[in-house]
C-alpha cells in the first residue's frame, strides 16, 4: 500500500510537469533569457549593432548623476500616486452608486465600463481632440460661459490631462469594486442602518473596510499600470506622423516625462541599450520597493476575515 502510494505521487508529479513543462520552457525563452540579456547589456556599452564592451556598473552610476533620469523617476512616482488615488476614489464612488438598487443599473454599468475597452491610440486622440486649445470641447464650453475664458490644458496641466484619460478608463476597477460591494452581506448593512448609521458612515465604516483586500489589489495593479504608461503622454502633446523613432524622440512636457519614455529614448533614439537596460532595472526596483512599502504600511488595515 505504501509502495503504491509512492508510485502514485510520482506519477502525479510527472503529470504536473508534463502539463506545465511547455509553460516553463516558454517562460525561460521569452522571459528569463531576455531578462538575463538585459542584465548583461546593462553592464556593457551595447548600441544595438556593434559588439558590446563590458563597462561594469558605470551605466548604473552614470544614471544616478543624470538629472533627466532621476527627474523621470520622480515624475513617474508623482503620477503613479495621483493616478491611483484619483482612480480609486472615483471608481469606489461610482461602484457604490451603481450597487444601489436602481433601474437601468445594467445599462449605466455598461456605459461607464465601455471606455475601458477603447484601445490606447483611440483614447489618446479622443482626449487630444477634447482638450486641445482651438477645437476642443472644453474650451468651447468655457468660451460660451465667458468669451475670454480659455485653457490650454494639454500644455499647462499635462499631468492632470493624462490622469483624466485614465480616470475615464477606470471601468476595470469599477467593475471589480462593484462585484465587491454586491458581495457584502445585506444583513451587515441593514443592522447598521437599523442602529441609525448614516449612508456615509455605512460606506466608510462597513463597506470600505470590507473591500480593503480589493483596494490593495487595485493599488498593486495600479502601480504596475502607471509605470507602464508611455504612449499616452507622448501622443497627447506631440503630433504623430513620420517613423516610429521620430514619434519616440518627441518630448512630452517635463511633468509627463516618465522613466519608461527615458528608457525607450535611450534605446531607440540614442542607441544606448546599455543605459536603457540599466534604467529598466532601476525602474523595476523602484516598483518593487513601492509595492512592498505599500503592503507593509497597510498590512494593519487590511480586513481579511470576511469570506
Amino acid at each position, binding site marked *: 500500500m505504501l509502495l503504491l502510494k509512492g508510485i502514485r505521487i510520482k506519477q502525479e508529479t510527472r503529470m504536473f510537469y508534463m502539463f506545465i513543462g511547455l509553460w516553463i520552457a*516558454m517562460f525561460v525563452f521569452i522571459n528569463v533569457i531576455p531578462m538575463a540579456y538585459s542584465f548583461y547589456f546593462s553592464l556593457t556599452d551595447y548600441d544595438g549593432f556593434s559588439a558590446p564592451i563590458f563597462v561594469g556598473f558605470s551605466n548604473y552610476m552614470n544614471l544616478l548623476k543624470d538629472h533627466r533620469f532621476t527627474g523621470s523617476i520622480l515624475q513617474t512616482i508623482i503620477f503613479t500616486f495621483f493616478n491611483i488615488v484619483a482612480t480609486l476614489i472615483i471608481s469606489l464612488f461610482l461602484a457604490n452608486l451603481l450597487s444601489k438598487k436602481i433601474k437601468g443599473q445594467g445599462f449605466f454599468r455598461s456605459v461607464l465600463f465601455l471606455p475601458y475597452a477603447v484601445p490606447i491610440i483611440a483614447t489618446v486622440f479622443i482626449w487630444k481632440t477634447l482638450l486641445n486649445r482651438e477645437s476642443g470641447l472644453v474650451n468651447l464650453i468655457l468660451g460660451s460661459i465667458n468669451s475670454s475664458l480659455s485653457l490650454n490644458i494639454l500644455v499647462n496641466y499635462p499631468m492632470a490631462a493624462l490622469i483624466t484619460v485614465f480616470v475615464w478608463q477606470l471601468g476595470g476597477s469599477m467593475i*471589480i469594486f462593484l462585484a465587491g460591494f454586491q458581495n457584502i452581506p445585506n444583513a451587515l448593512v441593514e443592522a447598521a442602518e437599523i442602529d441609525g448609521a448614516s449612508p456615509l458612515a455605512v460606506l466608510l465604516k462597513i463597506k470600505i473596510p470590507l473591500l480593503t483586500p480589493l483596494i490593495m489589489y487595485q493599488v498593486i495593479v495600479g502601480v504596475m499600470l502607471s509605470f507602464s504608461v508611455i504612449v499616452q503622454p507622448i501622443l497627447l502633446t506631440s503630433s504623430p506622423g513620420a517613423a516610429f523613432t521620430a514619434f519616440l524622440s518627441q518630448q512630452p512636457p517635463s511633468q509627463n516625462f516618465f522613466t519608461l519614455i527615458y528608457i525607450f529614448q535611450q534605446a531607440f533614439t540614442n542607441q544606448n541599450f546599455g543605459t536603457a537596460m540599466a534604467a529598466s532595472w532601476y525602474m523595476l526596483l523602484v516598483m518593487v520597493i513601492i509595492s512592498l512599502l505599500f503592503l507593509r504600511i497597510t498590512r494593519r488595515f487590511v480586513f481579511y476575515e470576511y469570506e
Partner: protein
Amino acid sequence: MNMNKNKDHIASKLPRPKSGKGNILTYVVIIIVVLLFVIPILWLILSSLKTQEEMVTFPATFFPLKAQFQNYFDALTKINYFKYLTNTIVLSLIYTVPGIITTAVFGYGFARFNAPGKKIFFNILMVLLLIPPIAVLIPEYAFFTKLHLVNTYYIWLLWGIAGNPLFIYLFKQFFSYFPKELEEAALLDGCSHIGVLFRIFLPLSKSIIVTVSLLSFLTVYGDFMGPAILLSGDNTTLAVAMANGYVARNGILLTPVLLSGIVLYLIPVILIFVFGQKYYVQGFISSSGVKE
C-alpha cells in the same frame, strides 16, 4: 466573523428601507457621470465629420458646419486600411487561438496536480502578473533581433503559446471549482488527463473560453508599442499605421481623417463589447479573486 450564507440570503429577501429623496439624487449623479463618460465618444464622432479648417478654428463649433463623410472615404484610402485591418485581425488570432489551448493546459496543470515545485512555479506566475509586459519589450527586442524574428508574426505566436499569465490564472481558477468526481470516473475508465481536459472540462468551460478569447483578442487588437517596435512597413497593425499614415504632403496631420479612421477602428471593439460584455466582465471579476 463568519457570515452565514443562508442568513444572508434570507436577509436579502426582506424589504429594504427606502428613502425617495436619496434615490432621485442617485439618478441625477449617475446621469451626469454617464454623460461625462459618453461625451468624449460623441465628440470624437462629431469631430470626425468636420473639415481640417474647423479643427483649428477657435472657438470650435459643436456640430460640424456640414458633415464631411468624405473623411471616412479618405481614412480608408489614404492608408491601405483593409490591409492593416487584416494584419491586425490575423495577428490577434495568431496570438489568441493557440493561446487558448496552451493556457487551458497550463491552467489544468496548476488546478489539478500537486507536485514538489508547484508552489514555486505558481508564485512565478503571480509575479509575472505584476511585471509590466512593456518593461520586457526592449530585452525581448534585442533577443528576437538575434533570432531574426523581428518583423515577423512568429513573435505573437510565441507569446500566445507561452500563455498570458492572467489567462492561465483564469483557467486555473475556473477548473478548480470542478468537482474531483468529474475526472475520477473518466480516469478509471481509462481516459487520460489530456482526454479529461479536452472531452470533459473544456466543453463545460465555454464561458471562460469566451472570456479569455475576448480579452486576448482585444489585447493584441489595441496594442500599440508591440507592433510599433517589433513590426515595420506593410506588416504593421492598424493602430501604428493610423498614427503614422494620416499626414498631408506638407507634413500636417489630417486630424478629421485620423478621427474617422479611429471611429472605424472602434467599431469591432464596441461590437465585441456589446455582445460579449457578460464574459468580459466575468474575466475581470474573477481575476481579482472576488467570489461571484
